[in-house]
């Protein structure tokens, strides 16, 4: 039963109900495939042979009881969490287990997966290319059918960008929708957990499973997301921000995105041009706040509590701690951190204004398709610029979806659908309708 591993989550649940195969068979098929393909892809850092539930892959920044959780860092090389993250507990009650922990950029800092202390993950579509990051292993594992679905974390695009570069669906929920208890904190005011997955309907289901208030995360105050049939409404208003189609966007990617927007128009959507005038400042504001919070959050790795000293941090982690420490240091706090926080307000207001005219905003996820491994690794600023279209959603705390919408040079392109805070439903509806009339997701990498 080789096809087993290509099924979506909803198809798996259906098939299990109809007794087409057992959970044992399902896990065996996946474990076999992981054994065969993981040496090529390096998507998993740890594999759980004893998984007897619906097998999900979990990014290695999410704590799993008794399963080693390294955040892809040497500093946590032997950290075995004594508890499960809230999302793991919630999945467990739905019959979902952990088949393995996936590779990522160290402490989720990166856009290519290359910052892992355990070697880069390869893009299943082309093994010389990066899979995107920071949830590199999660996206590669879903694209290569090495799990039914995966969880990633999204601080500045770390779910959406690798999903886009690997040709799968990725959902970043509204800030506060999903508990981060047990997620190793990077930037507490941006961090979210969400699914990387094979279909939009699957994403809605997993969001329902993992969302809802949790006393263990003081910022998780939202209501549980309730999955309803994703019906398309004809008069939906789709905003296209002119700032997302300017300089820096690869012309071939632009063409694919414009075709996708045309498709949505054919479905009956009303397409409107909108403006997000402060977009040009988003990247600078993002990296000031991101690194500031990192320098504070990573102070807990003090060489005592987790056993290993701070020289075990990798290059990018140290670089961000340095930048953040500088931005927060006496004399610079107002100039950098507070200024960035004010710009954050402007970006949030940009979205609020734009959403008066439209129900969702669409655009590219990434300015380019997957690039060569090693291409940007020595130029941090160029690497940061690859997050240009995803970071704004984290600054504003709004939900965003990445769905496959075509290929450029045999590499996947993702369409980003951004929504109002707490309105995942509408972005999922748009994604679902688009998915129904296109067959991109049926394309699979040849491995």
């Amino acid at each position: 039963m080789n096809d087993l591993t290509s099924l979506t989550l909803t198809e798996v649940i259906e098939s299990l109900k109809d007794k087409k195969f057992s959970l044992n068979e399902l896990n065996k098929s996946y474990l076999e495939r992981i054994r065969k393909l993981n040496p090529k892809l390096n998507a998993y850092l740890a594999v759980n042979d004893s998984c007897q539930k619906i097998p999900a892959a979990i990014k290695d920044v999410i704590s799993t009881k008794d399963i080693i959780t390294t955040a892809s860092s040497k500093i946590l090389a032997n950290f075995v969490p004594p508890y499960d993250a809230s999302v793991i507990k919630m999945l467990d009650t739905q019959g979902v287990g952990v088949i393995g922990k996936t590779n990522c950029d160290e402490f989720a800092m990166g856009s290519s997966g290359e910052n892992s202390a355990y070697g880069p993950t390869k893009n299943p579509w082309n093994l010389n290319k990066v899979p995107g990051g920071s949830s590199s292993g999660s996206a590669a594992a879903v694209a290569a059918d090495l799990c039914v679905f995966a969880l990633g974390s999204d601080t500045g695009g770390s779910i959406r960008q690798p999903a886009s570069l690997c040709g799968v669906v990725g959902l970043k929920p509204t800030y506060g929708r999903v508990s981060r208890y047990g997620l190793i904190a990077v930037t507490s005011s941006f961090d979210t957990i969400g699914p990387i997955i094979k279909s939009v309907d699957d994403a809605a289901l997993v969001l329902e499973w993992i969302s809802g208030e949790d006393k263990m995360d003081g910022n998780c105050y939202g209501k549980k997301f309730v999955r309803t049939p994703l019906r398309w409404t004809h008069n939906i208003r789709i905003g296209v921000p002119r700032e997302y189609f300017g300089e820096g966007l690869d012309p071939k990617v632009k063409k694919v995105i414009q075709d996708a927007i045309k498709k949505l128009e054919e479905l009956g959507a009303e397409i409107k041009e909108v403006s997000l005038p402060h977009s040009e400042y988003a990247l600078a504001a993002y990296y000031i706040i991101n690194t500031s919070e990192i320098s504070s959050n990573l102070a807990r790795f003090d060489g005592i509590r987790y056993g290993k000293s701070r020289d075990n941090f990798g290059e990018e982690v140290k670089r961000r701690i340095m930048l953040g420490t500088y931005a927060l240091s006496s004399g610079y706090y107002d100039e950098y951190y507070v200024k960035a926080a004010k710009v954050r307000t402007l970006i949030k207001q940009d979205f609020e204004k734009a959403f008066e005219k439209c129900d969702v905003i669409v655009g590219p996820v990434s300015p380019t398709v997957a690039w060569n491994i090693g291409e940007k690794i020595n130029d941090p600023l160029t690497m940061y610029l690859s997050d240009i279209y995803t970071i704004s959603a984290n600054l504003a705390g709004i939900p965003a979806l990445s769905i496959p919408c075509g290929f450029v040079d045999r590499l996947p392109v993702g369409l980003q659908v951004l929504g109002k805070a707490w309105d995942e439903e509408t972005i999922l509806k748009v994604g679902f309708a688009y998915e129904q009339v296109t067959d991109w997701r049926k394309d699979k990498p040849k491995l």
Partner: protein
Amino acid sequence: MKINVKHVAKLANLPLSQNEEEKYAKQLSKILDYMEKLNQADTLGVEPTFNVSGLSNVTRDDETEASLTNKKGHYVTKGVFNE
């Protein structure tokens, strides 16, 4: 933009090699030059957003929960003082 890498590394409690210090000095000043862009944004009278939830001082009951692996009354951890 000049950045005193030695001083910042001390504040951050990061042991850096000579090589790293030189590398970071170059890279960080290039990144900070880019951050200068922020100064072009007009933020007069704009309140900062530190967190979109707007919540502060959220508390919960302090209850005992699972902790480090407990074997025969000892907590099992990797050696701390032997490195």
